[in-house]
Every structure is written in structure tokens, then in C-alpha cells.
């Protein structure tokens, strides 16, 4: 394995760790806000690391630019959805620490 491949493997594995942690948080945290907190970590850092790993593997500026675009768009969609879901939960009276206000019908539409 070349140095670039090792670097890519480390970045991809790191990204997967964030995704696993985010998923565990989504399943285990007690309320909407905690779950959102866990998911946004996966969306932001996990996807950044995966995109960075793929960019190293691809080794071209064009692919890197497209991957950065993917990451920015994903983050944009994730932040706005998280904001809308959290606000909906708060308005529906879901207090922190209770599983109420579950995001059965997030106003942001399809989950990201």
C-alpha cells in the first residue's frame, strides 16, 4: 500500500467511526435533540472524513472539488433539516429528556 492509500484508509475508517457513533446515538439517546446532536456529527465530520478519504484515493482536483461540493450540500441539507426537526419538536412540546415530539412528521420532509 502506498502512503496515499494508507492515508485514505485512515480517513475512511475515521469517517465510518463517526457514522457508527452517530447511528448508535440516534438509537440510544433519549430525546429528539440528543438524537439530532448525534446525527449531525455523523453528517458533518463523518461525511467530511469519507469525502476526504475518497478524494485522496481519486487523486484528481476535479474529483476533489465534486466531493467538497457533495459534503457542503450534505451539510447544508442536514443543518436545515436538523433545525426544522428540532424547532418542530420544541413547538410540539417535546421537552429535552423526553422522547416526546418524536420526529414522526418532520416539516423538512424526507430524512437526510
Amino acid at each position, binding site marked *: 500500500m502506498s502512503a496515499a492509500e494508507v492515508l485514505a484508509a485512515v480517513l475512511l475508517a475515521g469517517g465510518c467511526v463517526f457514522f457508527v457513533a452517530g447511528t448508535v446515538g440516534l438509537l440510544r439517546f433519549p430525546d429528539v435533540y440528543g438524537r439530532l446532536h448525534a446525527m449531525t456529527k455523523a453528517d458533518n465530520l463523518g461525511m467530511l472524513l469519507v469525502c476526504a478519504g475518497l478524494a485522496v484515493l481519486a487523486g484528481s482536483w476535479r474529483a476533489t472539488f465534486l466531493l467538497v461540493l457533495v459534503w457542503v*450540500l450534505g451539510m*447544508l*441539507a442536514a*443543518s*436545515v433539516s436538523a*433545525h*426544522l426537526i428540532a*424547532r*418542530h419538536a420544541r*413547538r410540539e412540546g417535546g421537552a429535552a429528556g423526553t422522547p416526546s415530539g418524536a420526529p*414522526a*412528521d418532520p*416539516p*423538512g*420532509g*424526507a*430524512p437526510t
Partner: protein
Amino acid sequence: VNVSLAIDAVLALGLVTLAVLVTSGRALFRDIVLFVVFGLIVALVWARLGSADLALAEAAIGAGVTGALMLIAHRRLGGTTTFEAADRPAPPRFALPVAILVGSAVAVIGLSALGIERVVEGAGAAAQARTGETGLRNPITGVLLAFRNLDTLLEMVVLLAALLGAWAIAGPEEPDPVHRATRDTPLVAALLSAVVPLSVLIATHLLLAGTDQPGGAFQAGAVLAGCGVLLVLTGTLRPAAAAGFVTRLLVVAGAAAFVLVGVGAMAFGSPPMTMPGGWAVYLVETAMMLSIAVTLTLLFARSRGLRGEER
């Protein structure tokens, strides 16, 4: 251990598990979410099989737009999330025999398919050999727009029929509460200002790329429809009671352009549905993309037309 075989095995197992979960679930909302996940896994499977075109179409239409349609239908049905035991009708007594019959038929066909020798000189090989004559370098687009374009035309007609059917059974308009929650936050406008132009850009790219790379009218139309769904959800596009002339034109554009080009070719002595050149393919594909996008957006908005935001 063969890594790619392991990935395929995980995908196959996941597909079967998800299929069972989707169909046996008791919570409608959960089933819809699982169906979307199922669509995404199917897209991954197509990607693993090297069918980027199908993977794109499945992810955009099968998982994305269909998921959005089912979620909005679920909301309009009153958001019931669980079935009561009493609501579930008892399975008809033919269910088990039919299931066994169908299962064995699938097994027999599958087993006999394993033994079939690979046909080298099939229609696929002939199509691939002559793709160049269509002026298209993507054989998928060649099949969709040139070799088997009657099928593609009928798909457009099916989409049109679905919209007409939805219009026929749709009840009177109700004010839809979907958009209200999103109007007083600046983030939504910021998201739209980034996503809408990019959707148009990506759709155009997919349409143009379809001639020599994966892509085409269906993928491009689905991306635009996703953009339309977002605009409807955020209240930027509002349902209108009547379809205006432009809406009607856009809805029939795909089928109409196809028929006009296909029948027009006969006037010049070509067989029916011949694409007279690359320009015709672009014309028909653009019209199809617009029809697909507008039809799916109208189905999502449950309306006959769309109008701009009230200011």
C-alpha cells in the same frame, strides 16, 4: 475472504430482510422509511452490478421521489402510524397456496436460468454494435430513445395517465399546512437559494451527459422533481385549483414531442418512431425531463396547477 463477495452478500441479505420488514410491518410510517432504505440499497446493488444508469434512476425515483410521495400520502391520510389488529383484514384463504405457487415458480425460473448458456449474439449485442449509428455513445440511452423508444413513449403515457387518474379522484382543495412551519426561518430561503440553481444545473448535466455517460431524461426529471417537491414543501410553489396552459403543455410535452418526432419521421419516408438525428433525441429528452418533473411535482402537491408564493 473475498471482500467484494462479502459486500454483495451483505447487500443481498439486507435487501431480503428489508423486503420482509417493509411488507410485514405494522407501523405505516416505519414501513415507508424502510421502503426508502430498500430503494437506496437497490440503488447500491445496481451500482455494484455496474449499472450506473439504473442506480441513479432507482436512487432518484425509486427511493427519493416515491418516498416523498408516500410520506405526503401518509400525512394526508391523517398520519395514522400503526394499524390496529382489528383493521387488518384476515388473509384470504388463497393467500398461502398462491404464495407457495408463486414462490415455486420463481424458484423454478431462477434455477433454470442458472443453467442457461449465455447468449452472445442476443439483441443486446446487436444493439451495442449499432449504438454508434444513433449518434449516442451511451447504449442505455440508445435503447431508450432509439431501439426501444416505443416502450419509453408508453412510459411517458403511463405517467400522464397516473396524473390524470390522480386529478380525477382528488377531492376538493384544502389549505395544506405543510409550508406554514417553514416560512419564518431564514435558513429555508438560504437552502433554496443554493439547492434550486444546483438542481437545475445537475438536471441539465444529467440530461446532456445521457448521450455518452450514465444519465438521461428520467434521472434529470427526478432531480428537478425533487427540487419541485422542496419548493412545494417550503410554500414557494403553492397548489393551484386549475392547470394553466403552460402546466398542461409541460405535462404532455414528453409524450407529445415523442409522437411528433416519431410520426414526423414517417413524412420523410422513415419507419415510425425513427429518431432523425441527435437533435431529435435532445428535443425529446428535454421535453420528457420537463414532463416528468412537472408531473411528479403536481402529484406531490396533489393539485392541478402550481402558482407562486403569495407575498
